[in-house]
């Protein structure tokens, strides 16, 4: 059905009324995806619990661990939060029927995401500790590494979405996949709010 509504430019679509099947499927997919996010959140929470537990059990923190660079982390965090804002605009523009603005904003998001990852690499180099060096290495690298993997996966995810949109997989009225991608990206952002707070501000 999606094929029928593709315009001559290969993306977007006619303002066709979504049918019952689409509406129900969209609800299922969004709910399933939200539940996936909940269980992913539990995964992060478990490691956050592990970190706080280790930090508060026994010898003081940072247990002779290396020093973190808060200035770098602050600007890097803002980069990631900014990517959340650009992703929001991307979806809004799709809803209002503009493919080119959508594409611009999502490319912007991908660039900011990649920027955040390079910032993380800089931070890892700056710290210079190893994964296996003590409880600091264990909790810091595991949590930020897991988050980094999520960002990396998110960049690939968004790229795929962009290509799919360009090929006409989504229409301006049927775009569940784009909604899910936006949800995922926001989730990655928001997890970083927590990680940033517990590592740099606590």
């Amino acid at each position, binding site marked *: 059905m999606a094929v029928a509504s593709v315009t001559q430019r290969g993306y977007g679509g006619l303002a066709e009324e979504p049918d*019952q099947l689409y509406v*129900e*499927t969209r609800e*299922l997919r969004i709910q399933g995806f939200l*539940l996936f996010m909940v269980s992913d959140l539990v995964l992060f929470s*478990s490691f956050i619990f592990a970190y706080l537990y*280790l930090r508060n059990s026994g010898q003081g923190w940072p247990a002779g661990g290396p020093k973190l660079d808060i200035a770098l982390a602050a600007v890097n965090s803002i980069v990631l939060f900014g990517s959340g804002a650009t992703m929001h605009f991307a979806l809004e523009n799709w809803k209002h029927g503009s493919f080119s603005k959508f594409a611009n904003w999502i490319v912007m998001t991908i660039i900011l995401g990649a920027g955040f990852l390079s910032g993380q690499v800089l931070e890892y180099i700056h710290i210079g500790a190893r*994964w296996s060096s003590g409880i600091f290495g*264990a909790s810091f690298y*595991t949590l930020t590494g897991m988050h980094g993997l999520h960002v990396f996966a998110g960049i690939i995810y968004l790229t795929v979405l962009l290509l799919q949109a360009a090929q006409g997989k989504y229409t301006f009225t049927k775009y569940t996949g784009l909604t899910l991608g936006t949800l995922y990206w926001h989730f990655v952002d928001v997890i970083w709010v927590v990680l940033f707070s517990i590592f740099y501000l606590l």
Partner: protein
Amino acid sequence: MAAAAIHAGGGLADHIHPEPQGFVRKYVFSIDHKIIGIQYMITAFLFMILGGMLAELIRVQLMKASGGLMTPETYNEVYSVHGSTMVWLVIIPLLTGGFGNLIFPVQIGARDVAFPWLNMLSFWLFPPAGLMLYASFLMGAPTAGWTEYPPMSLQGGAGTSMWAAAIFLIGVSSTMTGINFLVTILKMRAPGMTFTRMPLFVWGQFVTAPLLMIATTALGAALAALFVQRQFGVAFFDPTRGGSPLLWQHMFWFYSHPAVYIMILPAFGMISEILPTFSRKPIFGYKMIAFSSCAIAILGFMVWAHHMFTSGLAPALQLPFMVLTMLIAIPTGVKIFSWVTTLWGGVIHMTTSMMFAIGFLATFTLGGITGVFLAAVPFDLHAHGTYFIVAHLHYVLVGGSLMGILAGLFYWYPKMSGRLMNETLGKWAFWLFFIGFNGTFLPMHWLGMWGQPRRVAMYDPQFQAWNQVASYFSFVMTAALILVLVNALWSMRNGKRSGPNPWNARTLEWQIPSPMPYYNFKHVPSVFAAPYDFAEPLPYRGLEEELDGAPPPVPAAH
């Protein structure tokens, strides 16, 4: 009677895929929830045979106080893999992936689960994970029990990492199943199927799904941490490098206590279906049973540290965990009282399924009572880590979950095969199982109280007599399980034809042919009451054509 919601049409419920053709798409990589359910059951029963053989090795080893069959090292591997198998490869897959998949989508009037492909993926992660667990025998299997406490598990052979990876895979599979089931129950109920009209088995799956989804992910984190600690020296649990062995216990039990309820809540649901059907009588206190399941699930997340009373938990933490654990006795008691009352005034059909269900009531009650004992910290100080614990956990897992599974197997077997299992063989199996089970595990209560610690390959000679009793009875129990297995295989071809509704039951799965057709329902029915009023007409509309020769629904164009 309020008018049932009108079926809108044109939505997901009417979107039927054409039935796949060819053996592989039909029976191997199937996306049909019924086939997947049967796949789960076959795989889980195969693993049960393996786990059962390990159990018999344990019992043979313990016939003599000085051991003798195996070296302590081998014995440790055997009971560790036995525990892991039974928990992760048998009970949980049978109750959720197996019976859950097979039955609950039909019971809510859906054509399939919300994400059939995800369902297939969930299943296909399960056999490889099981094989990985058994492959660990080749490289030095885990030895520290199914709980794998570090630092002990850090010393274990290479198979311990394999164990962690295998259980992690199982965890991913369970998480996906949980998400799938939850969305299905929330979104895909037939018109008029409100929450207070859902069969209680669906309620059981409904409260289990979030446990699967949330608790299992926490276990995944713990297993990942153990894995990287062992493989890359990441210091989570190593006390010599600032890590904490207790951290593992917290992370592990945060999963594994809810897992106990994952292993019993669906069985509660089964019992709640079987008792009213064979008593010809509504389940007593429907709402209280449903509500108490929710209460148990929620409380289940708040009691994990009662496994750690002797581990060095801060005293201020012991108190809330003790009191919360005792509170679970209340909803559980409500359930048991409701089931017993359901029997009162019924017309009881003593089928094999019903006998297992009634046996469940007795043995699970005993397991529940000893559970309350253990909640009391001072008593736990004595009983923790002894055979008393072994007795308690087998009373709830074998006397509870497995009895429920066997009851469910005899009950729903016709829905899989179109034939009934043999009742005479079944009743023999029940009595052998009931006697063998109690004879095996009842003596363990006092063995533990008198001082036999668990997980030992040899023990004090004064305990030998009772251990022999337990071993002999365990052979009886094994014989009973073999009898069930033989019965199931034999009945597949030679069983009496069952027809759609041999038990005269009232939930939706019994209103369609046996075995159930690919599309489940020719027309999605409307529901206008709970399914337990045996004196009333069936509370469904739109089922008139299910059993006559009307043509099957037309698949959607694709």
